[in-house]
């Protein structure tokens, strides 16, 4: 059984006095231990799709199953709290806190077991994504974009969620830094057995992934390669 099953999702946005169909009966399934990328032209609905599988929004019809359980039954909040970690293009860190605090915030909210010593676990995670101790205690505003994105990844990992979702995580970063981030995602899937789903515009990033999903605006459905 797949960790994440998307079945027949239908989603529209209001567009003037009509509604514009964005996702037209989309289905997909995702497994642990794999690094997925979602490609597609701008405005085709990638972010929308991600918002649905991260339970930040609700589909008009169709269902999403986590480990065979409908996420509606789990509860959106609880699903976000315990089962997905989200990484955003613009990092979305709490600016008045340090890197370490940003990670610890997530660990304080989840109900998952996050290990005994929260502080050292968080530091280890930051270390793993390339944030050393001195940077961990710095306000996130005093970190570079690439470093902030690493912190965001550490935060997504810290709750021990199975699924890591990222929307253009390298979009604001230079090629080299972006590659570093992609490597982290790859390792998450292969070493930590996470289900990693990354939305990207970069074919280069997509080449690194185990599976590429292309979303086409004319059919509004996936085409798996």
């Amino acid at each position, binding site marked *: 059984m797949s960790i994440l099953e998307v079945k027949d999702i239908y989603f529209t946005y209001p567009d003037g006095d009509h509604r514009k169909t964005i996702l037209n009966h989309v289905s997909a399934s995702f497994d642990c231990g794999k690094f997925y990328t979602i490609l597609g032209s701008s405005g085709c609905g990638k972010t929308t799709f991600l918002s649905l599988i991260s339970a930040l929004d609700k589909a008009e019809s169709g269902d999403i199953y986590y480990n065979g359980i409908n996420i509606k039954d789990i509860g959106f*909040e609880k699903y976000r709290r*315990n089962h997905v970690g989200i990484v955003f293009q*613009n990092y979305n*860190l709490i600016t008045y*806190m340090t890197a370490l605090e940003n990670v610890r*915030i*997530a*660990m304080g909210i989840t109900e998952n077991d996050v290990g005994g010593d929260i502080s050292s676990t968080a530091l280890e995670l930051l270390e793993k994504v390339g944030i050393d101790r001195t940077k961990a205690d710095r306000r996130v505003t005093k970190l570079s974009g690439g470093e902030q994105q690493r912190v965001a990844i550490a935060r997504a990992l810290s709750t021990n969620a199975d699924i890591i979702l990222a929307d253009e995580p390298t979009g604001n970063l230079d090629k080299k830094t972006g590659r570093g981030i992609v490597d982290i995602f790859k390792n998450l899937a292969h070493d930590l057995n996470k289900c990693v789903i990354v939305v990207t515009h970069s074919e280069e990033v997509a080449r690194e992934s185990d599976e590429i999903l292309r979303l086409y605006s004319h059919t509004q459905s996936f085409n798996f390669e």
Partner: protein
Amino acid sequence: MNLIKRVFVSITRRKVASLVILLVAFLMGNVMAVSISIQQSGQNIERNLLERIGGKIVLTGANISASRNVLSLDETSYNLQMNRFMEIYDYLASKNNIAYADYSLHFDGIDLVEGQNIELDESVQYPNGYSILHGIENRELIDEKERYIQFTNGEKFTEEQMKNGDNVLIVNEAVFIDGRPVKPNDVIEFEIKIEEYDPETNKFIITDKETFSYRVVGTFQVIDNKFSDVKNSNNIQMFYTPNQNIKNIYHKYSEMSSNERFQSKYWIDSATIVVSSSEYLFQLSESANSIVEEENYPITVTSTLDTVEKLISPVKSISAISQNILLFSMIAMTIILGLVSFYFIRDRKKEIGIYMSLGIRKSHLMLQIILESVLTGMAAIFLSIGSGWLISQQYSSSLLKNSLEVEESEYEEYMTDTLNYELLAQDVTDNYKITITFEDVSILIILSFSTILLSTAFPLFYIMRLDPKEILLE
């Protein structure tokens, strides 16, 4: 990082927001502390003053304190009034919780026999409308109880002497006999003279006369008590004697004189009834009022409760104003704090969105916002307890002084009869001490806590409507 740590980090790191909320709450807290302490002190002063003055009612029979020949009442109706007044007095004075009570009979048809070597203090001669003898109903001297005088030597009247109305006296030591202060067992001669008008000589001639020997049983001093001035004219007495003695003298006089030529006055001063504790005063004045209402003869009841209330009316109006200020400041604080926190929560839109994307429970998120406001606000409130108290001391005493000066004339009118205005006004200012009590602090904390809590409705409403997807996925 748990809820409490998040709150702590948020308060300490977001310094500008915290300081602004702290400042606003501090200013409002001061206004609230001032108005609460002014209000509370207004209530304390009423209690304190009543305690100080004593719970007392004064009964005055309009006719019988003026005497019948002034009003040219016939003797029968006059005596009926006298008797009814005494009955009412007896009824009220025998109630529970009465500390002491008395009334004084006066008759001015008796005077010292001339030629005795007696000196009276000029300033206090015949203090009570030319009646030299001051009757008492209670052998325990009420004037001593009220600390106008101090018993110095000898004995008080016995029950027997009170009942028979013996010719006995308790005399002011300011009275000198043979050049020395009066002392027990001295004898002082009084006389009744019946005079008749002789139209031929156009003069009064004495038609009858009788002398009475009074024995001094005790002596007293007028003491320099603050309140010794209060009822000045009534209380610096020369000679106390039992009321029954005054009655006896009056009857003697009536027998000797013919009704038509009745010249001298016989009357009752007001009666005073003092409760054992001011808490019983209301009850007593209620029953006094309900009795006199049904009387055919006019009797007025004055209570120190009315006096105190009248006296502290400026304090009351200050209290009333401060009550409005309190209400207004609570509403203002709710709105201003609400708007300020609303303003700052808008800046935290993204942070809130992050919490939501991390799957925080709505209830925890709301609790966090409430705790942040309440902790910052209450810290300011605690600071304002001290400063508010200082301000209210400055502010209210000057406010009170002004009010007292403005309304002074009004008091004088009211007060002349029973109590001395200036002394009491002084008492009001003396007793009007703004003290911060546990009660004041509790009220301040409860009211400001509710206000701050209420003000969080503004940011909470904003949070409820936030959509994390819109905030984060742009």
